[in-house]
C-alpha cells in the first residue's frame, strides 16, 4: 500500500502536464485541424471573417506559453471552420428558400 501511494505521488509530481490537462502538442494539433478546415471552407467560398485571425491568435498564445488560453481560441477557430463547411453544404441547395 505504502509503495503504491509513493508511486502515485511520484506520478503526480513527475508529470504535471498530464494533470494540467493540455500540452503544447495538443494545442498545435487543434490549430492544424482548424487551419485545414478553414482552407476547406475557403475553397467552398464560405470562409468566415475572423477564423484566420483566431488561428493566428492561438498560435501566438501558444508561443507565449499560454497553453489553456491558446486551446480555447484554437477550438473556437476549429468550430468556425466546421460550421462554415456545414453552411456551404446546406446552402448549395437551400439558397433557393429565399428566392421570391
Amino acid at each position, binding site marked *: 500500500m505504502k509503495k503504491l501511494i509513493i508511486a502515485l505521488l511520484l506520478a503526480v509530481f513527475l508529470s504535471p502536464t498530464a494533470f494540467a490537462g493540455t500540452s503544447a502538442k495538443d494545442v498545435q494539433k487543434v490549430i492544424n485541424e482548424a487551419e485545414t478546415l478553414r482552407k476547406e471552407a475557403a475553397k467552398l467560398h*464560405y470562409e*468566415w*471573417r475572423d477564423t484566420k485571425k483566431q488561428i493566428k491568435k492561438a498560435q501566438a498564445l501558444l508561443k507565449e506559453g499560454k497553453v489553456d488560453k491558446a486551446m480555447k481560441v484554437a477550438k473556437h477557430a476549429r468550430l468556425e471552420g466546421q460550421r462554415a463547411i456545414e*453552411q456551404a453544404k446546406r446552402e448549395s441547395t437551400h439558397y433557393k428558400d429565399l428566392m*421570391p
Partner: protein
Amino acid sequence: MNKQLVKTLLTTVAIMLALSSVAQASPEEDRQAFVKFFHDRFPNVKGDDWINGVYAIDSASRAQWEEIEDFPPYEIYVDEGKKLFETKFANGKSLADCFENGGIGIKQNYPYFDTKRGEVVTLELAINECREKNGEKPWGWKKGKLAAVSAYMAWTSRGKKTNVKIPNDPRALAAYEAGKKHFYSRRGQLNMACAHCHMHYSGNKLRADITSPALGHTTHFPVFRSKWGSLGTLHRRFGGCNKQVRAKPFKAQSEEYRNLEYFLTYMNNGLPINGPGARK
C-alpha cells in the same frame, strides 16, 4: 416486377424530369419575380424611384439627402474622372480608344459576358485592362482614380436604361446562377444572406440604418458615402456587406463579385443609370 408497375414507375420518372427542367426558372422569369416582390412589398414607390435606394422608402431621410444632392459631394470626382479619362497614355492613346462610342454613355451595358474569354467583364475591369494593354499601371480597384473614371463614365450614361444581357452560352448562364446563389445564400457567422437584409427585411431598421431594397442597387454606383468620406465602387460595398455578417469578403473584381454584379445588375434591367450617387 409486373409490367404495369414498371410502366407507372417510368412515367413518374419522366414527369419528374420534365418538372425539374421547368423548375429552373429563366433569368427573365427570375427578374420578373424579383421586381414583383418589391412592388408588392413597397406599393408606394412610384416609377423608377427605386434607383434612389433607401430614400425611395424612407421619407424621413429623403429630405436630408435631397439637400445633399443640391451640392453633390461627387461632383469633384466627376471632374477628376473626366480629366483622367481624357489624359493620353504614354503611347498617345487614351481610355476612349478601348470603348465603344469612345466610352461615352455606355455604362448601362456593363457588366457584360465576354463569350470569347468566358467570363464577366465589369466597367472597372475594362478600364484597368485598357490601361495595362497600353503599357500603363492598373489603378487600385475600390476607390481613387478608378472610381473617379467610373463615376465620369456613369455620369455620361445618366438616364440610359440598364441593359445587361445573358448571351446564349452555358457559361454565361452559369456565371449568372453563381451570382444568384451568392445573393440568396446565408453566409458568415451571422448566417445571413444579401436577400435577408435587402429583400425579406428590407425597410426594417438595422442598428442605425434602414436597409434598402435590392431593386435599384446597382444604378447609382460608384457612390460617395459620407461614412467613407470618398467615392467607392460596387465591389467595395459588397465587401462591406459580406463583413457585416462576419463572412470573409472576396477581393474586388474577383470572379465571385463579378458574377454577383452580373446577377444583381440583371435584376435591375430597365432602370435608368443615375450614377454617381450620394449615400450616408
